[in-house]
């Protein structure tokens, strides 16, 4: 019996897990999709976007922070839970300024991919059209706060992987915004460089390397091939790619 793995269930399906894994990690490894935005396999969980909220033994909790334990009964893919997720997505869309058709991230954007996958047909709520600053000062990297979803992946990547703490979330409530650690508050005066993981971890188009926007054409991008819920292998194992020029080569091969 010693080589039998511990298990729990998601919507009745038995999921094996290793000690120390979260419900979300174990689910993705087992090929079960749980929607999420602020999780990345290279980083510690944050539990803020709340898209991965599931019920665990009847109680609501974030799958990304919930430790996997033997015998847990998790409900994930139910109409009621997905309804709530759709509302959360609508909230994120109306809170910022998201214009997918003109966005360089389109096709690689997790927010957009989630909205397609969960069949979010309209933003439903009134757009708040916030006035948010764009920082184009850095020679290699854009910071467009209009698209920020406050997931703090850049904050965590810079602090925990790059050892720089270039980004912080400041302010309160909807006035929260990513601030940059530099005397001027501008990216150009910060320690951020193009080979930082923080420059490439953004799940939406808020932080983007410059001059790479359309090198991979629309149609050939990550979530163009298959809906995000069918890409659990990618979501479970992905690494932050700090060398976006590789996409050039892959493109060249295709052409």
């Amino acid at each position, binding site marked *: 019996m010693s080589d039998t793995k511990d298990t729990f269930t998601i919507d009745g399906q038995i999921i094996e897990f290793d000690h120390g894994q979260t419900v979300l990690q174990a689910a993705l490894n087992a090929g079960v999709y749980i929607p999420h935005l602020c999780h990345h396999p290279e980083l510690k969980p944050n539990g803020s976007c709340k898209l991965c909220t599931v019920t665990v033994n009847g109680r609501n909790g974030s799958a990304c922070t919930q430790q996997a334990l033997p015998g847990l009964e998790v409900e994930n893919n139910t109409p009621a839970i997905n309804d709530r997720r759709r509302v959360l997505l609508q909230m994120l869309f109306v809170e910022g300024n998201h214009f997918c058709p003109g966005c360089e991230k389109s096709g690689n954007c997790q927010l957009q991919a989630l909205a397609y996958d969960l069949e979010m047909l309209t933003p439903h709520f009134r757009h708040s059209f916030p006035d948010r600053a764009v920082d184009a000062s850095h020679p290699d990297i854009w910071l467009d706060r209009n698209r920020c979803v406050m997931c703090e992946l850049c904050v965590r990547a810079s602090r925990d992987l790059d050892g720089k*703490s270039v980004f912080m979330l400041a302010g309160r409530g909807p006035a929260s915004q990513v601030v940059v650690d530099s005397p001027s508050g501008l990216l150009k005066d910060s320690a951020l460089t193009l080979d930082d993981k923080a420059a490439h971890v953004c799940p939406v188009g808020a932080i983007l390397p410059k001059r790479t926007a359309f090198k991979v054409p629309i149609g050939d991008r990550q979530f163009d091939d298959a809906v995000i819920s069918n890409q659990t292998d990618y979501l479970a194992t992905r690494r932050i790619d700090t060398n976006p020029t590789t996409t050039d080569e892959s493109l060249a091969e295709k052409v």
Partner: protein
Amino acid sequence: MTATLVSPTALEPLVDPILDKHHRCPDRLVQILREVQESLDYLSEETVAYLARALDMSQAQVRSTRDFYAFFYRENRGRYRILVSNNITDRMLDNHDIFNHFLNRLKLEAGKVSADGLVSIDYTSCTGMCDQGPAILVNNHAITRMTLHRADEICDLIRKQVPLTHWPAEFFAVSDNIHRADMLLGGNHVPGEAIKAAIARGRDGMLAEIKAANLRGRGGAGFTTAIKWDAGRKTPADQRYIVCNADEGEPGTFKDRVLLQSYPGRVFEGMVIAAYTVGAQQGFLYLRGEYLYLLASLEAYLAEMRRQNLLGKSIAGVPGFDFDIEIHLGAGAYVCGEESALIESLEGKAGRPRVRPPFPVTSGYMNKPTVVNNVETLCKATEIAIHGGKWYEAIGTKQSTGTKILSVSGDCERPGLYEYAFGVRISQVLEDCGAKDAIAVQVSGASGVCLSEREFGRRIAFEDVPTAGSFMIFGKNRDMFEVARNFIHFFAHESCGFCTPCRVGTHLLSDIMDKIAAGKGTQYEMNELLRLQQVLKPGSHCGLGQTAGNAIADTVQKFRPTYERRLAQTDFVPAFDLDLSLAKAREVSGRDDAEAHFSEHVEH
């Protein structure tokens, strides 16, 4: 008006003594910012840069903390900063008239500093003076019982630039208003008696008594105190902390303010007893910024306790029993009442609630075991130390032992504190405070429950109506829709912004309530309110978002006509207002004639 630029060399003599006082510890950042602002009036980018350098922190970290708290200002807000408390109880006492009077007299725009950089005025969340409102804060010092006459006097003092310390003392008088005292408010306090009683029982004995008493937390959640203390003491650690949560931000609550003002011995001795039982060496009192006026007297009381050897080394002659208490002030953030957010704030950061588990009892302040208890809970520990758990357990109900202090405000003859054994009926409280025509009582604050007349037979107890102590009464002429609208504005203002449902959802709810208030809501909006509540309640990260929609859900259910009479008689009115969208263009072009407006009904 350009702000006075302070060069780094000019900052040094002002800021360095404050930095030194706090040993240049980054975890004291909230305290440092508060004290620096006291002398500089606001915290400019230059000040941020200077502090970051001196504390060896990143500027982004300092900005993150500064920009989180409502009482920290990045731009000049004047040497006199007036904040008018905007709880529903202040509203019912016509605080809007006071606010507008200030605006007119001082020729101000809300939220903007005067042209001469002298004064600004804005609203703030409940300041905990509901029994003696309308209340304001001037540079965070509380002034109660505001009248138009008093507002005039204040305007004159500001115009003459009289320092706050020279304003009439009666402005700052805060009354206790105790109308019903029981074992805590009526008890006799002999300094040191409770601590010595606890020591006589021993560490295990004291914990056993707390357990036997079935003491539960008075902050609202009602968690069993003995479990918390036991977990704190069992977790292996070289350092443990006791935190007294005096961030009494729940609208309508003010009992902790009275306990700290007139019963500080119980509070601090409760902390010492907790420290003795748990094995903690350091304690913090986290005092909400609105209670700044209490700081000096509390510091003096702590000094006296040290003199009497009730704090410090070998307390009460017990070798190795070392414990001391430090007071930290908040800076205008309701969410810091949540224990993990409070700990973040104690560590000098923005008060965003942590992911739990781990719970503070195993990993709290500086990742060490930290027991966070409410002010009243700690007072209760002194009673149990003296009289024992069995005696205590006999008072109240089975699951809610002992007494509970209620902060009564709103439509009644005698607002103030009422202490009852648990199990008291709502109707009894209403009778005692002289509330003759109540239609509703909001129990446990904006996050609590709204009870209508037919529920006045219910009892205050964890098994029926649990409460953190707030008890706001609404008479027959009150509009419960406006009550719910006031509360949702409060939550939208106080949402920390960490999680999506609360950050966005509280604002969507406020917008919908405003739309209904403007007569543009329909049945569609009524459905939307409840739909959003079904996302916020299960999906939010902490209690703030989970309870933000409660008052709306309660009043929709119990006071539906007050919503319905505001609804437009159509299927739907768009939220986007074509005419309003031209307001900016009208302002720029200086036009306001009929041609510059869309007509009310678009003709086809």
